[in-house]
């Protein structure tokens, strides 16, 4: 008997002997099969099956279309550029925050500015961009006097997505830069290196895996972004997610949309696998022994500090400007025509838009505990328990997270409209979409937290006579509660702000604020669109503050930082 077979049999034996574990594994697999594998299978079937025959004709038809091919390359180009620009911006930002000896107040300003794009509904920067740039834009025309500036196209989509996603790079790189012991840099100085040389030969190389990671995260985020190009890309720069959306909602070509989203699936998976199995496995910083005594950081020349800080503040200023403009648009009668203050738009969203607000809160509220529980259960199982198919379970659980929302939305639309499982028109389909798409953050937080908690703590409980159910409830659960709250927080926030998947799933019975924002924008009700956006930002911000406060109260090892989790 080989050892692998022996281990497998041992795994089965243990699983069967532990009824709580056995039941949980079965239930989780059933859920994963229903809400991740089944829709994906339906999507693939729609792409590759025609009348029961396997065919490449659908794919070929789409790929033959030069516009779709163009959209594919455009998507990759945009994603690569956003990855580069966002990573660079994030690095500058992180470098300033960690290495410029800033006071707490400055860092708070930088953090706040970087948090805003992470918690905003889509379109917010896009809306502000439209009003700021263009032939009569507030900035291009009124401020700079440029005429005939075109706001639609690659450049503005790139600008908007970079601003929206660079905080991911910032949050990825900041801890890495902070983890580089200043003493290492001191060492290099003592060997006679110049500041630039230290930066080039010590600081930068230590950050390279982090930069690669940030790049891939941004690449994936941009690849999946559907809202920004919808508003800003215009007609000359089609990208895949938007094309797939228009193919389905406009042309009623579900098959075409399915095939387009399948085309998107390939680069998304490649990037995900690279990020997961290559970059994230590399050790960022080798810290041997204790971090030395705090030394003053000398890696930044005094003359360089001011321009660096200035650049960061400019960036923060642009972001803040966008949000001020958004608020302004929500509080005047008609931006650009009548700037009288009014609360009318807020009245509108709290009367006519009340259903959307209520639906969104109900869906987010329902998804929140379910997502939190699902996240810690699955995270706990894959991190701590030995059972057959453990690794497969982890991989499957990450699929919907790794795929662009458009794919997931279309897959759900195809899978749950016809018997055997009809869910269209229900809130369940939206809740399920959010739970299985955004809980992986909670899963990873749980796994990370459990890695800091010695397994012997659970063994101690077992040794004292507690079964696995009791141990989980009385020992593990309290210890991973921070991950639970972080996980449910992310599900809630994304439920409030996401649109790419669920735009396909809203119905007469259940609608969402983000979809209302899009509708309002296409209906030219900019005021209500802005008011909705402000409302979402306020709610999400309040939830983040509440959860961060909650997390600070735990006396458990490994505090989970709410904002940093949003970056993943």
């Amino acid at each position, binding site marked *: 008997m*080989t*050892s*692998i077979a*022996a*281990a497998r049999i*041992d795994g089965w*034996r*243990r699983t069967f*002997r*532990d009824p709580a574990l056995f039941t949980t594994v079965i239930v989780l697999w059933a859920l994963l099969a229903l809400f991740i594998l089944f829709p994906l299978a339906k999507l693939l079937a729609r792409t590759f099956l025609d009348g029961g025959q396997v065919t490449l004709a659908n794919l070929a038809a789409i790929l033959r279309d030069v516009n779709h091919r163009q959209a594919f390359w455009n998507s990759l180009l945009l994603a690569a550029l956003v990855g580069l620009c966002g990573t660079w911006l994030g690095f500058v930002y992180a470098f300033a925050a960690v290495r410029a000896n800033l006071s707490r107040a400055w860092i708070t300003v930088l953090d706040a500015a970087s948090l805003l794009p992470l918690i905003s509904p889509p379109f917010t920067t896009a809306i502000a961009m439209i009003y700021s740039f263009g032939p009569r834009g507030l900035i291009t025309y009124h401020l700079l006097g440029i005429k005939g500036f075109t706001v639609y196209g690659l450049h503005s989509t790139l600008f908007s997505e970079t601003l929206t996603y660079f905080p991911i790079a910032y949050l990825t790189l900041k801890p890495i830069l902070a983890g580089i012991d200043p003493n290492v840099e001191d060492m290099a100085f003592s060997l006679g290196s110049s500041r630039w040389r230290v930066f080039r030969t010590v600081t930068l190389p230590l950050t390279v895996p982090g930069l690669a990671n940030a790049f891939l995260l941004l690449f994936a985020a941009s690849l999946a972004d559907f809202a920004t190009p919808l508003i800003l890309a215009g007609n000359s720069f089609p990208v895949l997610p938007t094309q797939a959306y228009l193919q389905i909602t406009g042309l009623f070509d579900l098959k075409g949309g399915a095939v387009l989203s399948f085309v998107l699936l390939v680069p998304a998976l490649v990037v995900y696998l690279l990020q997961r199995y290559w970059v994230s496995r590399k050790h960022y910083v080798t810290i041997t022994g204790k971090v030395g005594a705090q030394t003053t950081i000398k890696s930044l020349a005094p003359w360089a500090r001011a321009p660096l800080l200035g650049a960061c503040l400019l960036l923060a200023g642009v972001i803040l400007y966008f949000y001020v403009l958004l608020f302004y648009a929500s509080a005047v009668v008609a931006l650009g025509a009548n700037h009288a203050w009014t609360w009318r738009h807020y009245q509108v969203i709290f009367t006519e838009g009340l259903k959307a607000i209520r639906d969104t809160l109900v869906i987010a509220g329902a998804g929140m505990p379910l997502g939190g529980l699902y996240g810690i259960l699955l995270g706990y199982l894959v991190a701590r328990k030995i059972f057959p198919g453990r690794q497969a379970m982890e991989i499957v659980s990450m699929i919907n997270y790794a795929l662009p929302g458009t794919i997931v939305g279309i897959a759900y639309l195809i899978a749950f409209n016809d018997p055997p499982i009809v869910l269209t028109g229900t809130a369940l389909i939206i809740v399920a979409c959010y739970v299985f798409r955004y809980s992986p953050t909670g899963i990873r937080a749980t796994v990370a937290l459990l890695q800091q908690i*010695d397994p*012997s*703590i659970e*063994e*101690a*409980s*077992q*040794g*004292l*006579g*507690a*079964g696995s159910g*009791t141990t989980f409830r*009385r*020992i593990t659960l*309290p*210890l991973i509660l921070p991950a639970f709250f972080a996980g449910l927080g992310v599900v809630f926030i994304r439920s409030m702000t996401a649109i790419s998947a669920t735009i396909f799933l809203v119905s007469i019975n259940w609608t969402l604020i983000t979809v209302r924002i899009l509708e309002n924008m296409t209906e030219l009700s900019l005021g209500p669109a802005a008011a909705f956006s402000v409302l979402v930002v306020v709610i999400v911000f309040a939830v983040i503050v509440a959860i961060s406060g909650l997390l600070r109260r*735990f*006396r*458990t*090892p490994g505090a989970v930082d709410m904002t940093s989790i949003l970056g993943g």
Partner: protein
Amino acid sequence: MSAVGIRLEGISKRFAHRVKGEVYAVRDVSLTVQPAELLTLLGPSGCGKTTTLRMIAGFEQPDAGRVFIGEQDVTGLMANQRNIGFVFQNYALFPHLSVFENVAYGLRVQRQPEQEIARAAGDVLALVGLQGYDRQFPNQLSGGEQQRVALARAIVIRPRVLLFDEPLSNLDAKLRVHMRGELRELQQRLHITAVYVTHDQEEAMAISDRIAVMHQGQIVQEGTAESLYRHPGSEFVAQFIGRTNLLSGRVRSASPGEIELEVAGQHLRLPGDAVRATAGQIVRLVVRPEVIELRPADSPDGIPGTIVSRTFLGEKAEYQVRVGEDLLQVTSYNPVQRGLFTVGQPVRLHFPAEGIQLLPGGPA
């Protein structure tokens, strides 16, 4: 409750290893621990001692063999069904529970009445000297205090056996010596069977009734500290228990009751009952540093050597002496009165026959 023994019958545990494929962590280990005995599993890291302990506890399942606690075959039972007390290397205290709740945990799992829990937990905390610590949290305690909580938590459920996995290795040297005394005293007071895992031979010798030395997943020798020291069965045991010099010698003649050896050009006669040897055979000798006597170079006989280094430690002096190609360690007690040798000085070494053990088998 009277103490029960532990019996391991041919247990094995394999692990899948990325490079080597299938690796035995523990291989066909059989062992009996007498009731109320404290037996130590001693060995270097990776020798399988912790895996063996964890199989006794039920945290690991043996691939082969059986585990008995008392007369009960517990091989198929989970850890929570075995009624054991386990003390972890890192204590594994529940960080979110107070000291009292940590200790009360096992009683709560047993659904004991609240009064009984309060009484029993209070008694045990008093027993380990932690009265008044009830409301503290683990992160507010020193290492030694955490150790006592872990101990209290393990014994409060009146386990059938106590299992210790390197419980003192996270403490500083002084506290370690103090705590091992306390542990031993407590075990004897509770009259409970205990298995103790350590890689520290001094700790093992100080605390144990018996020691089982493990090497590469197997028990290579078991016995009292004294018997292991005096009669090591292998080079490994000889080197692991105490400091030692290993020398090769050739058997000149062997007759019942006496063996004549040639070691470094000197003839030695040893009582030969223990080892069967034939003339011409090469054997290994264990010579403890403290049995070697150094004499000035002009002494009539002994093996000639040269002092290479000297460490003066007050009550003793430790020398390294070059003999031929070997470096021997020699410990000389009461060196001030006996006279110190200096580095580079030629000396003669005397091996008293009664201080030398022969290892079986040929050269390693």
